[in-house]
């Protein structure tokens, strides 16, 4: 089991609220039976039509994505966090996340931490000013440091524990005491018969 205790690396700021998973990974790239190569298509349509931070050479090699509110809303496609992770993103900092995106990211060991809107903007400003700044996130301490910027970041305690203990890869855990699953299912009349 791989423990995820935080992340460290240069940042890439992506401004804007409600960035949906259709924008992160347009649906036509879901026409495949593996996740291979999805990193080539992250934000593809936005990058064609706007000047996008993912094409800005100053942020090349960045691994901490800094977003605003409700990031990852819309479709449940795991292809969105898969594409980001394969592109090299190891953590996302934002004002807030859509629930399914947050859960999908956890399932692949990609931590999504929240900070206050003011702190997120400070961090985005700082990275834009000094793209070489190293951003360090410590999940256990709930702390983010970037040069002289020190901000508090949050993640629900259960999710933090799952990441830092390596229990985010849940299948083994869920199969662990399968007799209890059987017992629970037998309590349900629609399973055992009305």
């Amino acid at each position, binding site marked *: 089991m791989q423990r995820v205790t935080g992340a460290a690396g240069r940042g890439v700021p992506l401004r804007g609220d409600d960035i*949906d998973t259709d924008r992160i990974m347009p649906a036509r790239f879901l026409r*495949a039976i593996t996740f291979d190569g999805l990193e080539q298509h992250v934000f593809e*349509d936005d990058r064609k039509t706007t000047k996008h931070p993912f094409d800005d050479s100053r942020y090349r090699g960045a691994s901490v994505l800094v977003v605003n509110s409700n990031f990852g809303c*819309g*479709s449940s496609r795991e292809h969105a966090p898969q594409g980001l992770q394969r592109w090299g993103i190891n953590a996302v900092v934002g004002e807030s996340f859509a629930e399914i995106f947050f859960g999908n990211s956890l399932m692949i060991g990609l931590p999504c931490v929240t900070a206050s809107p003011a702190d997120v903007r400070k961090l985005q400003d700082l990275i834009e000013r000094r793209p070489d700044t190293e951003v360090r996130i410590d999940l256990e301490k709930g702390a983010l440091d970037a040069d002289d910027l020190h901000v508090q970041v949050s993640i629900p305690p259960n999710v933090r524990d799952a990441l830092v203990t390596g229990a985010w890869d849940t299948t083994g855990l869920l199969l662990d005491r399968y007799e209890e699953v059987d017992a629970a299912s037998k309590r349900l*009349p629609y399973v055992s018969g009305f």
Partner: protein
Amino acid sequence: MGKTLLQKVWDLHTVRQLPTGQTQLFIGLHLVHEVTTPQAFDELRARGWKVARPDRTFATTDHIIPTQSRQRPFLDVMAEDMLVSLERNVRDFGIRFAGLDDDRQGIVHVIGPELGLTQPGMTIACGDSHTSTHGAFGAVAFGIGTSQVRDVLASQCLALEPMKVRRIRVSGNLAKGVYAKDVVLTIIQRLGVRGGTGYAYEYAGDAIERMSMDERMTICNMSIEGGARVGYVNPDETTFEYMKGRPFAPSGDAFERAKAWWLAMASDRNASFDDDVEIRAEELTPVVTWGVNPGQSIGIDERVPSPESAGNEKQAVTDALDYMGLRPGQPIAGMKVDVAFIGSCTNSRLSDLREAARIVRGHRVAPHVKALVVPGSVSVSRAAEQEGIAEIFRAAGFEWRGAGCSMCLGMNPDKLEGNQVCAASSNRNFKGRQGSPTGRTLLMSPAMVAAAALAGEVTDVRRLVN
């Protein structure tokens, strides 16, 4: 203190608290389709796991299938690969499958209820965010990603965090020409696209109670567009009447016993909610989206906002107007449309098509409009043919297509081209959603789409329904 339906279902399906503090929840029904599952099945193979409960799993194909010709192999080799992969997976793992040649095929959120697979009191998961649709039956139903699909396949369980419950009471009567779609678009507009994060939405009140199952499904379907992963309506006589005689529903005495259990799952009268919201149905008008998320909508009589009046949403409004090619303060009525799409898991059921056909009967689609109807399932399609609805659409110049997700998300050949404007009965107006990176979507009720198709522009359906 009483309990909500969500709490009852949650407690009953809890297997245990995991060491992480998350809840291990048993999933009563797992619905599978071709887009979000191939990688999950591959992981099962790689780890040597079986599907734990094939008897609680059901698959169909909907997202990628062409709606004009079902001939195999598909012209799109990637789509063909995906269907071949699903066909192999259901065969290898022994999963029930409504495939391309099956009379039961259709959009996963249309066929679950049609077949009686969807039942009150269940937990339902599917690798699709619109799984909230099934909440119309008083199920706790939600979308998941591919790794969670793997978990459900392998263990029939998920590791989850609990949810809060917001009750949204809709009371009073809807005016003619105002539909369930307008109710849910209004809810999203008022509470915002992020307002529901962390919540399940319980839809209640006399207006919801009077609604048919199809209408309730439209409302629950779009919960996720308001940020709520789960939306539900308490089961009642309308629910039970719908369930009766469905292939997978209990029958005879078992149906009566089931009914008693289903009823007991409804929220208690004295249940407490984390939040309460009231909506007056009389105040509602037909709603149209003008922007790039489902919360950016206005009444048909209104004008699109200007960035100056948008407060801290100024940048978002500027971007959205720019993408949509709209001027600040422009009336939405009269906006020219190029395409009219009636379909999707939100609004492709028989009653949706009936209502749209009522508008269309005896008229012609405007010459510059490409109009298509994509029924939600083979069964809806056949019923519409028998009732003569399909013929009404064809005679008016609509294309009558085969069942699938189609132009809701453009994963099949049905896509917008360039910056076409589409009046759509679907659920998302995100940038590029309908298959063209610059395509523009206006969400509205199926009747409003029908009206727009005839007029060639956005128009008030209330003038046509009396």
